[in-house]
């Protein structure tokens, strides 16, 4: 390399280096500082965060207390969007605790605070549909699930579609349900929502089971199980195993069905889900009775009774 070229290269480097350093400095200092948040709103947001953490670790009492405080703080400054967030959260936690009247009261209070154009409206509509479903009001559940699907334009659209498909299947409209579930599967894959993707697959498995297409149903359930194992969701894994058990029992393969139910029971017991475990035990008891093993059936029923603490629902 000639001396002239070297000098030229050095000059270029000496020009580029300060430019790069200046660029890095500007990148670091760029951006205006965030707008200050009033202390009451900051406290309300902090309570909401505490509620989310409590719910994530399974402390539903703590979550309700924190969301309640957040709601009080938002209401003290007439912050309606904030209050709506707290109300939707309260409704969701109450529903998960099985307190449907309380959940309904909270979600009905959130409804007038959220116009349909609001970004939170689809979430509110989804929750309202879930509460309708939990209380057995299928028409209301369907109406709100449809509104949720129509208004959600983001990554949650697959979840909304899953719910609508689930309601349609319960209404016995499996063709429509399949269309929605397939749409949900595509949307969830596109959004990378693995849990909801597994829900779509399980739903498609249910639809195939309803149509007596056991081969397809088994494939869907296996795919769903694989995803649920990947995301390590105990309740969903147990649900997949129970669905596989139903499928095997329907095909007359009692041994295989018992195997799936035993696995589902084990997963539920270790995942602190007594209801899931009791459900698996009930199916096992029925299969044992069918196969002429009354002692085993009796033992499974006794264990189920112990798990549910006397509150039996067949």
């Amino acid at each position, binding site marked *: 390399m000639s001396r002239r070229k070297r000098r030229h290269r050095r000059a270029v480097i000496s020009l580029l280096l300060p430019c790069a350093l200046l660029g890095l400095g500007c*990148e*670091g*200092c760029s951006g205006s*500082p*965030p707008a200050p948040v009033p202390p009451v709103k900051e406290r309300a*947001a902090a309570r*909401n*965060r505490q*509620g*989310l953490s409590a*719910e994530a670790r399974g402390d539903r009492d703590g*979550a309700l207390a924190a969301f309640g405080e957040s709601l009080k703080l938002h209401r003290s400054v007439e912050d309606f*969007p904030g209050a709506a*967030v707290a109300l*939707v*959260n309260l409704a*969701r*936690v109450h*529903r*998960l605790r099985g307190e449907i009247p309380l959940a309904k009261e909270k979600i009905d209070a959130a409804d007038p605070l959220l116009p349909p154009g609001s*970004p*939170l409206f689809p*979430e509110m509509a*989804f*929750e309202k549909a*879930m509460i309708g479903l939990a209380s057995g009001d299928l028409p209301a559940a369907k109406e709100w699930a449809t509104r949720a699907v129509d208004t959600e334009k983001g990554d*949650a659209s697959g*979840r*909304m579609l*899953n*719910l609508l498909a*689930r309601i349609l299947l319960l209404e016995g409209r499996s063709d429509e349900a399949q269309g929605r579930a397939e749409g949900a599967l595509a949307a969830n894959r596109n959004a990378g929502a693995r*849990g*909801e993707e597994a*829900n779509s697959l*399980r739903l498609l498995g249910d639809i195939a089971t309803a149509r007596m297409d056991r081969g397809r149903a088994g494939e869907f359930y296996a795919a769903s199980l694989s995803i649920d194992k990947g995301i390590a969701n105990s309740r*969903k894994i147990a*649900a997949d195993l129970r669905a596989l058990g139903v499928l095997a029992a329907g095909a007359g393969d009692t041994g295989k069905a018992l195997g799936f139910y035993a696995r589902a029971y084990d997963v539920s017991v270790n995942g602190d889900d007594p209801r899931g475990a009791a459900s698996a035990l009930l199916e096992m008891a029925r299969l044992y009775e069918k196969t002429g093993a009354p002692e085993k059936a009796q033992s499974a029923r006794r264990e189920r009774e112990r798990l549910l603490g006397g509150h039996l629902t067949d």
Partner: protein
Amino acid sequence: MKREKDPKFRHLEAIVGAFVLAAFAAIVSLVLFLGIENDLFSEKYPLRFRTDSGAGFTRGMPVKLSGFRIGRIQKISLDDQAKVVVRMRIDRKYQKWIRADSTATLLREGLVGDSVVSISVGSPGSRVLPGDDFLPFMPEKDLSRLAFELSDSVKTVLLEIRETVAYINDPKGDLQQTLGNVRRLSANMEKSRHRVDTLLVTATGTVARVDPVMDNLATAIDNVGRRLPVLLDRMEGTLSNTERISREFLKATEKGGPRIPPLLRGTEELVEDTDTIVKGMKTMWPFKKHVPPANGPGIVPGDSHE
């Protein structure tokens, strides 16, 4: 040969000399300043104290008197009895305050502050401690130690109460026997009353039959009279112990109680400060690029399968 002279370098030697002098003066000032800051130029004298454990002491740890630093720990060593000898270097000008009744204590400054050795001011009547002399070391009781001592005292009372209850319940014990005697006495008195009735009715000279009963009565009363004071003494002892423990507990509460609110306040402020710092850092480059965005508007994650 003609020597070229550039007018720009005319006073070069003088300028370089001035710079060298200025640099030298700056270095000397810095050394002096650091020396004064670290008390290098003040006269020192050694003092020592002995303690069971060297935990918490470090070389160079400040030694304070009434909150002012008066020296540092110079050396920590073990003596023949495996005791820890801590040697301090104290500024000579403070010697007049450190007297024979001064004590050394290991203290922590604030909630998360450094540990320091604190020396108490001696009383004017005591002699000034000469160099290399030993100060008594007073280990400060922490809350766990207080709780331990309290639990010891409570344990003693509980043991005494248990013994007393066992003594009261013991079927062969004085009290049970006394009660048995009183029961027998009552029964005897009932019988005696019947007999006295009979006697009165029949008016026979069976008064002598009352004598054994009266003897029993006298024995029982004698028993009660002898054993009751012992029992009362024991009860009194237990009560005085309970009173002592209550007083100690009150003292411990009075001592520890006022420290708890400032501690809690300090912790709260610390947590708030940390929260502020972490929040600030989250908005700074390069951290902000690695902080995941908040979960939308803060909604509990929904699931279509629930």
